[in-house]
């Protein structure tokens, strides 16, 4: 996971001399899963507001590997946003240390630091008086990039978030739909190719259909850019869909469980986590396992015309089984050729096998 680009990311944290370094990393957006992300460590971080007797965040410690997408999930007011905002010092910690690639965040100039951390908030906060291109160019401008380099980067990013630069670069935020604005928000945060991204319920204000579309796009994007991302949400399903690991938080940002979505769904650490998952944990887990990963039956066992692709989730397979009422349906490989069949029993077995296989590392990783 760690390669040369990680170093580039960390060097840019130094600020001034670093602008040159970003030139070649901007191309990384088209490469496959590089980890341009940085390592983040929070140790014994506390936040106590002067006018409150109870801590907002108490002894928070966490290690985030480069390129990981970490979800902070918890009810409103649990301190998840406060914890995230201490990483770019929008909120100053009362005590504790936060390091990014070994560099103490609290010793850096806060403005310099923030130029190398992408930041997306729920309200997006696009600047209404600036065109879309100008909005995306804000951080490159602060970093003193040349006009040409900035313009190329703006066009590149608009394409990345699936907005045609010729159509959108000169528009203003109010001329865009909510979903389009949110894409621009993500593009703007990515502008200087920061190793770390902080996202505070970025898709929270969009309608369910747009949200799901944005989530899928975002997953695809992260696949290619491999940033280290802290993503705050109160929507557990969103956390399951997006996260490499999920931190389930309770009052004072206490970590109840910190693990992969599979492990949390398969074995919630306590009643609090279980209540947060809600009903249908097994169905949620099925959504994370692909048909190809299950133990499948012979192709000749398949009945009827219905079929699922190997890449589809077991949840899709079960859905189809229920809908058709067939004992088993066909599984197709790319190209549509039937290679196997799947039955309800096999779906169920995959769940048990998955849970058993995932149990072992789960114990070690839990914080």
């Amino acid at each position, binding site marked *: 996971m760690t390669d040369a680009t990680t170093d580039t990311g960390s060097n840019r944290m130094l600020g001034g001399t670093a602008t040159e370094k970003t030139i070649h990393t901007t191309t990384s957006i088209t490469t496959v899963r590089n980890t341009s992300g940085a390592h983040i460590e929070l140790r014994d971080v506390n936040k106590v507001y002067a006018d409150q007797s109870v801590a907002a965040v108490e002894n928070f410690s966490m290690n985030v590997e480069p390129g990981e997408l970490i979800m902070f999930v918890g009810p409103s007011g649990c301190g998840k946003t406060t914890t995230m905002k201490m990483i770019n010092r929008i909120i100053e910690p009362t005590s504790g240390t936060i390091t990014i690639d070994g560099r103490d965040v609290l010793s850096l100039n806060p403005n310099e*630091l923030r130029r190398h*951390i992408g930041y997306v908030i729920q309200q997006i906060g696009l600047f*209404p*008086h600036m065109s879309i291109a100008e909005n995306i160019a*804000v951080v490159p401008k602060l970093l003193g990039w040349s006009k040409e380099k900035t313009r190329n980067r703006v066009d590149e990013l608009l394409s990345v978030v699936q907005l045609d630069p010729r159509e959108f670069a000169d528009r203003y*935020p109010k001329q865009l739909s909510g979903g389009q604005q949110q894409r621009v928000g993500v593009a703007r945060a990515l502008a200087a190719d920061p190793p770390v991204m902080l996202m505070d319920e970025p898709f929270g204000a969009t309608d369910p259909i747009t949200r799901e579309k944005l989530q899928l796009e975002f997953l695809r994007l992260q696949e290619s850019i491999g940033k280290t991302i802290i993503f705050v949400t109160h929507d557990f399903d969103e956390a399951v869909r997006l996260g490499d690991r999920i931190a389930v938080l309770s009052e004072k940002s206490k970590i109840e469980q910190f693990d992969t979505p599979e492990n949390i769904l398969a074995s919630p650490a306590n009643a609090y986590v279980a209540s947060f998952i809600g009903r249908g944990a097994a169905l949620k887990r099925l959504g994370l396992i692909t048909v190809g990963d299950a133990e499948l039956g012979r192709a000749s066992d398949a009945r009827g015309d219905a079929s699922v692709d190997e890449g589809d989730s077991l949840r899709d397979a079960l859905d189809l089984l229920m809908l058709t009422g067939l004992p088993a349906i066909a599984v197709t490989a790319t190209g549509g050729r039937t290679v196997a069949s799947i039955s309800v029993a096999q779906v169920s077995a995959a769940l048990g096998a998955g849970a058993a296989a995932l149990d072992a590392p789960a114990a070690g990783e839990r914080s």
Partner: protein
Amino acid sequence: MTGFDLSGLLAFWAKRHDDILSLIGEHLLVVAIALLLATIVGVGVGLLVWNRPVGRSLAVTSAAVVLTIPSLALLAAMIPLFGLGWTPTLIGLTLYSLLPIIRNTVVGLREVSPAIMESAKGMGMSPPTVLLRIQLPMAWPVIVTGVRVAAQLTIGIAAIGAYVGGPGLGQMIFQGLSSLGSKNALNFALTGTLGVIVLALIVDGLFTIITKYTTSKGLRA
């Protein structure tokens, strides 16, 4: 007192159009200079105090107090300090313009939503950069509206400036008032008054254009 005579008035205009035009020019000039000074001072003060509760109320309140002083009294009070002529008029008009400009600057800067302030900060802008590159441009239409109100105010008050020997259409009004009963008294007063009204309308239209061309397309309704 003589009655109104339209042909007399038209003849008066034909005979004195050079005088009238130069007085209109003077009137416009003194208002323009006062507004320029007040905009520089008012926006400057606004930028300094918008986020300081004590400074803010001090600035807005003192500008409001100035506005409550009757113009005639304020102008007369300045004679011992600045003598007669342009100077007291200019200073008086600048003082009167400050309230709408300071108040609108402060309101405009404070109106920028917390989300926009936070995203600007989160992108690594220093507070002065946020103020000048985000808040000021966003507040600009509100600030221009303040200047526009100040313009309407000062075009009227400038007429009183003639009382302290100031320039502009007020000279005609005062000349008419001081020669009541004479043939042209009404024509003088009427021309000065009409001139002020027409000027106010033209300047207001001018501000519509100024607002349009100095405000970002993204902020226009």
